[in-house]
């Protein structure tokens, strides 16, 4: 999948115009925040989390919805809710 660098945020990549890389996440999966999201829930301070690894601690427990924000605990950066398109699974 090709990503487009964002001019205003060095190190962050846009997926605009590219098919969404959404998938179902499970509790306990190791994931990586591998890019910024275009989703409105992505806030500026989250830029610094790109590249960090963490564990899914609360996936969507209601609908299994690819659009739901899921809770991820980042190693050394606390727990945050992320849109799923900025995450990829490292291991199961």
């Amino acid at each position, binding site marked *: 999948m090709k990503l487009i660098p964002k001019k205003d945020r060095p190190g962050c990549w846009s997926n605009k115009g590219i*098919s*969404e*890389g*959404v*998938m*179902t996440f499970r*509790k*306990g999966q*190791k994931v990586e925040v591998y890019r910024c999201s275009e989703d*409105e*829930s992505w*806030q500026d*301070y989250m830029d610094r989390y790109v590249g960090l*690894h963490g*564990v*899914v*601690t*609360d*996936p*969507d*427990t*209601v*609908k*299994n*919805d*690819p*659009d*739901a*924000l899921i*809770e991820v*605990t*980042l*190693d*050394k*950066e*606390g*727990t*945050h*809710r992320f849109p799923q398109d900025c995450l990829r699974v*490292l*291991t199961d």
Partner: protein
Amino acid sequence: MSDRICPVADTVKRLSDAIVEGHLKHARGRQLAEDILKLTQDITSGRGGPEHLPAMGSLAQRLVTEVPDKACQETGRWLQSVFSEQREVFLSHLETRTCPDADCVRLAPAPCQMSCPAGIDVPSYVTLVGEGRDEDAIELIREDNPFPWVCGLVCTNPCEFMCVRGRIDTPVSIKYLKGFAAERAMSDRLYRNPEKSPDNGRKVAIVGAGPAGLTAAYYLALKGYRVTVIDALPMAGGMMMVGIPRYRLPREVIDQEVSMIEDLGVEFRFNTRMGKDVTFDQLREEGFEAFLIAVGAHASLTIGIPGENRYPQVMDAIAFLRRVALGDRHMPGKRVAIIGGGNVAMDAARTCVRLGCHEVSVIYRRTRSEMPANEEEVHQAEEEGIRFSFLTIPVEILGTDDTLASLRCMRTELGPPDDSGRRRPVPVEGSDYLLHVDAIIPAIGQTVDPSGLTDLETLKWSRRHTVGVNIASMETSIDGIFAAGDAVSGPATVVEAIGGGKRAAGAIDRYLCGIPQPKMPPVPVRRRRMPFTQVPASTKMSLQRPNMPMLNDERRRVTFQQVELGYPENAVREEARRCLRCDICIRCGRCVDICRNKMGIDALQMGYLNFDHPDPTDFRITAERCILCGACAANCPTGAMRMEDSGDERVLSLCGTILNRLKVERCEMCGRVIGPERYHDFIRKRIKGINQHLTDRVLCLECARRSGIETDTEKGPPRVLV
């Protein structure tokens, strides 16, 4: 190493000392100093923004000009000079979030604490529980979370997913330890509120008495605010009370913890609907200066199939659970179908069983492995006799007149992965069948009910129909109005709502004090360093996570009695000893590296240090190989690895886990304690090729020298050099 101390860290230390030691006696001056301290701490923890330094300068100026107290004025002048002379250093901290002197490096909390949305200092309270100090553990937990008992029963325990012990065998049972400590502290009448600040006369209104609203109320009341909580329900607790069934969370637990909050002077207005019984304008007229919207997500989503709105026997899960929580014990029907595969669906299904329903079926469109409900909830539901129909979708609800008769369902199969990687359920043509039911309970998700907030015309909403906020400060688009909990996140967890409520309380306090908001959500920070509990390596490795005793199946099917019965006391104390104290050991691996690569001994088998790919761990191996040279302890940056002499023994321990223990030898001449024999043998082997004059005498360095002078040096060095 340089003696220079970072000016930012130094400012925090000196200002804290001045406040704590009571040098600043003038109340206004002390308040200003506390505000400056808060902002400086933001900088040391990487949370500062460009407004911080000007705001700090302005507060220091006010300390000099507005406070008629000499000590306060001197402090103000000192701060002004620091901010001016060290301006570049402060700016560098703000811009790079780095402290070149390493004094402001954020203390690294343990992974369990980092994962907790409320930021509870887990290793410290687990240590206290292990020592039997339950009331101290609860006091510590309540610094970050006013609901330790509730969370001890229903938390989704993200801490356990990050628990480093899980990389060795199984995570420490953190949640149940907390539940035990809270129950014991309450039972011993030692569950107490901390001392609150004096009344500051300022009023804050909180809309919603759920976990977020009550948490904010607790922390604001502790800061001296007059807090009023408004709720449409007749009781406090919100979704904890009407969304979580009693067999998971007894009402008494919520009531007891809410009453502790009420004891702080928090006022409740129940049966009061925002927008109907009271408006924001009316509250402003009453003198409320800030508001928190914590209304939760109590509206259910609809399934959108024919017949859904036609029959009274079709009721959404949230309304059903609320009805039962408020005392209704009538079964919805003999045969009930629950639609959905999430936690709410499991709660509704298990509640139906307890109300006496004969057949309870859960209809879910995907497979079991894709159910979003917690695994243990699904397992317990199966134990209670609930039937699951996977790969099934509801198509139509059928009946006659006003009476429901059946649910037409269709089988599905999972198609190939689509562009998104998900295998979507595809209906199988001709597979439809009728499921005869007396009631249907859709449980396919919740959303925020905006009806009470319509008079806030400029309130920004997200596309997910939640209140839009700045997550770092929980500020909404309207000045003075904050939001937290499910109203912001959508349906989430109790502990996440608690974390949001705490963050909102801090932000409201800043707002009312006129100081800038942080730019990032707070990262949990360590507040204390508890002494280690000594545990032998063999015990550390052999202790196993206990199984939770459960209520028997028969009773579970007929009563709302708590299903998880709690650990016995001895299991709790032992379980706490499994904790690795990751608040002290930062898993840098320096000890392993030195032992293996520098000393060539390889006595530390600690594969758990690798986050992504943990290898086997066995603390007992150390005793077989370790020579107690102390290189690991000497190079440990946090003091986690220690080597200490105790009587005739030298002991190596990692965060209290005793890795090796060997008898030390004494100097033949002066009797001074020197190293263990294994270490001496190691040194002898190493220097054997270099020095051919080793003797068998056991001498300390000093006596060896003296002996060397007194006798012929050709006799060679002594056996021991320590």
